[in-house]
């Protein structure tokens, strides 16, 4: 029984990885008081940029991920210019970025439809990977999975233990106060949005160069939106975001193993499961109004003109 669960566990880690990157990025953006609904678009732009780079150079994810990050960050700057510098409606700007990103990635990706990439070999961590049963699952993953764990540690540490984290949260709670003390509110928000874009780009590039190493139009398939929902589910806390990402990773992977587990539900309905689960999870977390109010960055989504 345990043996049959191990591949599910291993797959869960991989499926959760893009959600972790995109989710952590959006979490930082929202903690600065900005809501960017363009995650899906930035992921797709990162996915095609990473894929194109990997396909052209032959270096795979090693070049694909940095390129994806750059492309995602660049795309996020369009959002930042309109939503921050021009103080336009943030939700609508994010939506525009998603529509733009879906179109742009499909446009560029036209040339790459028939390519495929070799993917990544797992990286076994010495000693730990020899632990019976769980060793091969947890410690024989590709390096990007480990990178996602380091990203989590970095974001969690920065938010809770550093001056930068404090500043970011101050800007998200009360931009007026931060501005009055003399902090560059818009500068910090620009930085947060760029970070979110880079992380979404990495998430996309992971999908296109490692997870399913080929380019398919719209291949992020709503993961960017799920990442946005995860941030709410996490009540803006990195630790809970990881929990949520693994939960969704498991739901995503379960559909491929359902038949093996003796569940006979049509594949299309199983494929709808992660999206239905997102709704359920949002409902469960939102019904506790106090919990949300307590953790919601006070200036989230509000425009700031000093």
């Amino acid at each position, binding site marked *: 029984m345990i043996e049959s669960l191990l591949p599910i566990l291993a797959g869960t880690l991989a499926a959760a990885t893009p959600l972790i990157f995109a989710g952590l990025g959006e979490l930082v953006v929202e903690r600065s008081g900005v809501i960017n*609904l363009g995650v899906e*678009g930035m992921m797709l732009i990162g996915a095609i940029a990473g894929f194109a780079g990997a396909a052209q150079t032959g270096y795979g994810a090693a070049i694909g991920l940095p390129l994806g990050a750059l492309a995602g960050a660049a795309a996020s700057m*369009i959002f930042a210019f*309109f939503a*921050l*510098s*021009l*103080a*336009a*409606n943030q*939700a*609508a*700007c994010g*939506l*525009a*970025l*998603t*529509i*733009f*990103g*879906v*179109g*742009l990635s*499909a*446009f560029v990706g*036209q040339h790459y439809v028939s390519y495929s990439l070799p993917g990544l070999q797992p990286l076994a961590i010495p000693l730990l990977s020899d632990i019976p049963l769980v060793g091969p699952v947890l410690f024989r993953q590709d390096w990007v999975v480990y990178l996602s764990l380091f990203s989590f540690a970095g974001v969690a540490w920065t938010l809770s233990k550093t001056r930068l984290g404090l500043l970011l949260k101050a800007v998200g709670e009360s931009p007026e106060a931060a501005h009055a003390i003399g902090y*560059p509110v*818009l*500068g910090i928000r*620009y930085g947060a949005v760029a970070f979110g874009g880079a992380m979404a780009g990495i998430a996309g590039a992971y999908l296109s160069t490692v997870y399913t190493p080929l380019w398919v*139009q719209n291949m992020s*398939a*709503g993961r960017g*939106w*799920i990442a*946005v*929902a995860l941030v*709410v589910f996490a009540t803006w806390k990195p630790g809970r975001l990881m929990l949520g990402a693994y939960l969704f990773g498991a739901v995503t992977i379960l559909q491929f193993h359902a038949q093996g587990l003796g569940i006979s539900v*049509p594949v*299309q*309905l199983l*494929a*709808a499961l992660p*999206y*239905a689960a*997102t*709704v359920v999870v*949002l*409902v469960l977390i*939102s*019904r506790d*109004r106090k919990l*949300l109010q307590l953790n919601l960055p006070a200036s989230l989504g509000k425009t700031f*003109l*000093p």
Partner: protein
Amino acid sequence: MHLLEPRAQPSQLMRWTAPLWAILAMLLTGSLLFWMLGKPPLESFQVFFIEPLTSSYGWSELLIKASPLILIAEGLAIGFKARIYNIGAEGQLTMGALFAGGVAVHFDGVDAAWVLPAMVAAGALGGALWGALPALLKTRFNAEETLTTLMLGYVASFILAYMVNGPWRDPEGMNFPQSIMFGDSALFRVLMEGTRLNTSIIITLFAVLGFWLFNARSFLAYRLEVGGQAPAAARYAGFSAKQTVWFSLVMSGLMAGLAGVGEVAGPVGQLNLNISPGYGFAAIIVAYLGRLHAVGIVFASLLIALIYLGGEAAQVSLQMPAAITGIFQGMLLFFLLGADAFIDNRLRRPA
């Protein structure tokens, strides 16, 4: 980095001309894009924006594409005014198509006049139900409608995929994920010989008239708008916030459902996986571009429909992917939001 400062008085000029500035900016950026891709900008512009309008067939196609956009955007505008952001109209369209398609598949071969009206009613019901669900989740459980409407859109697309792969698949369709082609009694009648323009356009015309009257004359529309602009005032006046949520989401879902019926009982003629090229999302742009005004939406729909047609023409004449449509739509929304920023603000001047 702060480019703007508040104006003493909102600019009336910008209030009314913002969409025009946005369109101009889109056209300029678009020409630049063509030029960067090594296509002659003027000729590309001609292919994209002028040629589709040089034949009566082109105009009929324009109306076919504008019709669903109008229907959806009229419904969305109600919610947007009340600050209820339904961004899952694509899913509500899918549900409408599915319900209507169910009637058509079930009563295939029944040559009766009630089949099409039954499909319209079923489609409206399907869309309304798919809008009612997020309304319930919002009023009962406080769940944000932006994310729930969008997620339910994905769920709807998988239900459609299941139905056309399973119970409703055309047995003679060579295993393609599609239903049977609907019979004549389940299709809108073609209005103009040689085109695909059909009688569903009449529903759209009545919808525009209805929403115009509703917005201009009804007390309910006024209450919705107060709820959006000044929630505290609305509460004080005793306007129910829950009622606003229900009405906005059910109404916009219903209209998107009608758009779905128009597609499957019109140009598509069956259930398949390509019933909409993203009308539900494009309609969000339409609603804003049309200033949430019933008649403004008609003009905005015609423009977005033209961008769809231009994308198709560019694919044929310029060997460009049709995805360029999405690029133009995204740019247009950005520019519109940017132009709107200048209604209440002006460029910061050195002190």
